[in-house]
């Protein structure tokens, strides 16, 4: 009896405490000291070791802490490479086999216990060489080596192979990575590699301090030590964490060059002013779209995408911002995503791989316009080829005869496909990564589209690991996938069709065409884009003709931003752009005051 009485008292007090929260909860939250940018991450950070970063979430945070030799101009379009840690663009030898790189003096790592006296030291050329060796070192299990350096840098593959036997020798010399002075280094290549400069603007090539690596050991993933404008303050493994200003950050200024319309949009008003403008970045990991949306509307986030379920609440049928949000001075930004989504045909499969009329029939049977409207709320474009818009090699005038919706023609081609097959086509199996409702709805839409022309397909929804297994072993016939570019050159899409990259490599559809391969090999050693363009266009034409992909869509992103967030311009390739952004505290406070009044 006594136990029950005590238990009852405890529970009553606890319940009363929870129910009393509305009476003392201050909705406006504590006043922020200094200028604070509030941002959300849609998934957890995997780790902040730059050499091992392979996901966009980790890159979003690490990009504020680490810097690379080069970056992309924040405002200019098309994307233009500019030096960041480097003093200038690389000096390339006439044969394209050596790049001399010079970094700017006076760049310091942030303060950290890893350094003597806790004072961050100056960045030198050795830090880059060390970082690239770390990427090659098998013991670090970096996922980026294959895409960036494999086969290109003299002696680096050998260093990698040697690291399989035990701890790698970082004091040894590598022929292709040469330190010429405190601020100068040279990369010697086995063959010309014009895309290397893009990779040098990619986070995995960011320098790390050897002291930090040795001090933290395997815990380096939790202790980023970079040269960027911000440094980590607290534990990022929590769902809420902050970055604070790196007081060692050098003098950098806001860009003075932009594209047409930037000046009118106020994006050049801060030209020449010292960056960063923001003192602290507060990140929240919010994995579900619904709470992310609520937090944005509540002013807890400065910017947000629009969840599918809330789209009609935010956007009018005319694709403009809805009245209520417009009244709050929220702005809508639309921009092309450097990605393409597709259903890939396994070209090794005896049914779909050797039957061109079948692939074309399926492509014509798919109603992309309805798909984009129904599943993306119209945030997409009907694709032309594998190269999306916003790439210099994109041809807006190009027509792809196989992406229109034409069920009649599809049926005719299907009959031809059956003739080629020597009888009725068997049931086709489609591997789809994901088991959630939206994925299943998309898959069902595809199935129904095919059924309408008389083709039977079975959708096999699977987890990502199972899907990758199916890809590796080539056990699927058709698969749903997408690709997001890492740099603004069409090669980053076309390599997905290069024969030697077949499964288990990145060419998941196992496409192989002698002419395509020859053009690819010729193009990728040419230093200038203008010279590569004709080959790129012909390669794209081959892909369009052969139809190894049933192209679904190019994505268009919609982002909403509160009026207090200034200098915001989406940049698909530059890392760490928050340093250019500013927060107008007065406007934010006014919003909170109004909200407080309203409640």
């Amino acid at each position, binding site marked *: *009896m006594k136990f029950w009485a005590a*238990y*009852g008292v*405890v*529970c009553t007090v*606890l319940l009363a*405490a*929870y*129910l009393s*929260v*509305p009476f003392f*909860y201050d*909705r406006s939250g504590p006043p922020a000291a200094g200028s604070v940018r509030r941002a959300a991450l849609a998934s*957890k950070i*995997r*780790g902040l*070791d730059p050499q*091992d970063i*392979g996901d966009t979430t980790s890159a979003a945070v690490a990009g504020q802490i680490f810097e690379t030799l080069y970056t992309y101009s924040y405002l200019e379009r098309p994307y233009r490479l500019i030096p960041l840690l480097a003093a200038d663009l690389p000096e390339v030898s006439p044969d394209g086999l050596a790049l001399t790189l010079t970094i700017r003096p006076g760049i310091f790592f942030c303060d950290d216990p890893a350094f003597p006296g806790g004072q961050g030291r100056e960045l030198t050329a050795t830090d880059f060489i060390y970082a690239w060796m770390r990427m090659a070192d*098998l*013991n670090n*299990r970096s*996922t*980026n*080596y*294959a*895409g960036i350096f*494999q086969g290109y840098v003299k002696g680096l593959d050998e260093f990698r192979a040697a690291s*399989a036997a035990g701890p790698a020798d970082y004091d040894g010399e590598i022929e292709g990575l040469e330190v010429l002075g405190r601020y100068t280094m040279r990369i010697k290549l086995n063959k010309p590699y014009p895309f290397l400069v893009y990779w040098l603007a990619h986070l995995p090539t960011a320098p790390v301090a050897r002291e930090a690596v040795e001090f933290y050991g*395997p815990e380096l*993933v*939790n202790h980023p030590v970079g040269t960027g404008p911000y440094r980590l303050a*607290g534990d990022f*493994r*929590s*769902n*809420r*964490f902050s970055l604070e200003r790196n007081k060692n950050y050098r003098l950098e200024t806001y860009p003075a060059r932009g594209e047409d319309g930037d000046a009118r949009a106020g994006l050049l008003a801060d030209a020449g002013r010292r960056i960063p403008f923001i003192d602290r970045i507060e990140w*929240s*990991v*919010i*994995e*579900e779209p*619904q*709470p992310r949306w*609520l*937090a944005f*509307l*509540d002013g*807890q986030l400065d910017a947000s995408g629009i969840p599918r379920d809330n789209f009609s609440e935010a956007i009018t049928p005319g694709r403009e911002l809805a009245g209520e949000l417009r009244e709050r001075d929220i702005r809508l930004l639309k921009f092309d995503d450097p990605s393409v989504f597709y259903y890939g045909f396994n070209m090794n499969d005896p049914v779909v791989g050797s039957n061109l009329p079948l692939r074309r029939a399926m492509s014509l049977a798919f109603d992309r316009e309805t798909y984009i409207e129904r599943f993306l709320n119209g945030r997409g474009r009907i694709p032309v080829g594998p190269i999306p818009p916003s790439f210099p090699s994109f041809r807006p005038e190009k027509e792809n005869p196989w992406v229109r919706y034409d069920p009649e023609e599809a049926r005719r081609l299907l009959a031809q496909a059956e003739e080629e097959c020597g009888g009725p086509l068997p049931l086709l199996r489609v591997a789809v990564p994901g088991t959630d409702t939206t994925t299943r709805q998309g898959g069902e839409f595809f199935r129904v589209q095919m059924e309408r022309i008389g083709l039977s397909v079975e959708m096999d929804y699977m*987890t*990502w*690991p*199972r*899907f*990758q*297994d199916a890809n*590796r072993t080539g056990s699927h016939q058709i698969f749903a996938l997408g690709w997001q570019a890492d740099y603004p050159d069409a090669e980053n899409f076309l390599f997905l069709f290069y024969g030697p990259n077949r499964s*288990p490599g*990145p060419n998941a559809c196992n496409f192989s065409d002698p002419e395509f391969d020859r053009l690819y090999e010729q193009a990728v050693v040419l230093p200038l884009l203008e010279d590569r363009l004709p080959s790129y266009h012909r390669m794209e034409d081959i892909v369009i003709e052969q139809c190894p992909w049933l192209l679904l869509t190019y994505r268009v992103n919609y982002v909403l931003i509160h009026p207090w967030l200034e200098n915001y311009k989406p940049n698909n390739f530059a890392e760490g752009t928050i340093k250019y952004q500013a927060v107008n505290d007065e406007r934010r406070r006014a919003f909170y005051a109004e909200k407080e009044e309203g409640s």
Partner: protein
Amino acid sequence: MRRFLVKRLLYCIPVLFGISLLTFLLFRVVGGDPVDRLAGKYARAEQKEQLREQLGFNLPLWPRPELLLAGDLGNFADNQLFHHLFDTFTFRFGRSQQYHRRISAMILSGLVPSLSLTLPAFLLGLFLQTALALLSASRRGSRFDRLLTLACLVGMSFPFLALIIFGQSLLAGRFGWFPILGFPEKFGLGVLTHTALPVLLGLVAGLGGGVRFYRTILIEEAESDYVRTARAKGLKESRVLFGHVLKNAMIPIITRTVVVIPFLFLGSLLLERFFSIPGLGYMLVDAVNSSDWPVINALTFVGAVFYLGAVVLTDVLYALVDPRVSLK
């Protein structure tokens, strides 16, 4: 009692062995190959093979009997199954392949947020469910009992996900009575503020089923002969309910509640995800989706240990509350 405990704990070893073997079969043999994900999107066959070697996935899955017959014990023991069993039973879970973080640190850091959410919801739920069930059982057939039964049925029919979305949008988003999401970096009063809404939603979601369950048990007990005798002797109703009915209904109550306790440690998947609480709720699902084998193994094994511990505890509690039960 000591002998019983030792015996029960010894029984746990083969059960844990079986669970560990089953986990291995499901995720290492039948499940996908994690190397494809770990190797990155640009990896070719040779890089994947190198990684497979590094992770020990190139070793044979099973011990080969012919090596044992040949007396080659070193190679006989060098297989994935033996390594897995040795590491698991010595609690050497290593690091997550996805987050590169010590799994023990991941579990420990997720434990407090998860328990901050699940423990109050469990304690309050048990209290409210039994209290309402007692009231309902003691007034069986009354208007209150009928209304409560109806409310329970409505509550049970309402999907938990819908309840979360509705509660979060209305009470936090629109009215601003509670924080929309988040969990404080430091443990303090902020925990109460940030977990209030998810706890209350969890409480509401579990109320219907719990009340119905306990009401049925209590009514069964309340109709027993010994209760009628107690009432005939003129005992007060509170004494009858708490001293007799509730005490004798303890066996099913213990069975239901104690077995739930291990799951409290593993958190609440939906609540943690929607309220952005960094607990353990989503860790297992996330690990399965990404084939993070060491995390799957650690959470399954730790969960199994907790569960078996709870089963032993249940047996001990049976003996404590019911003199008819003896531990032999």
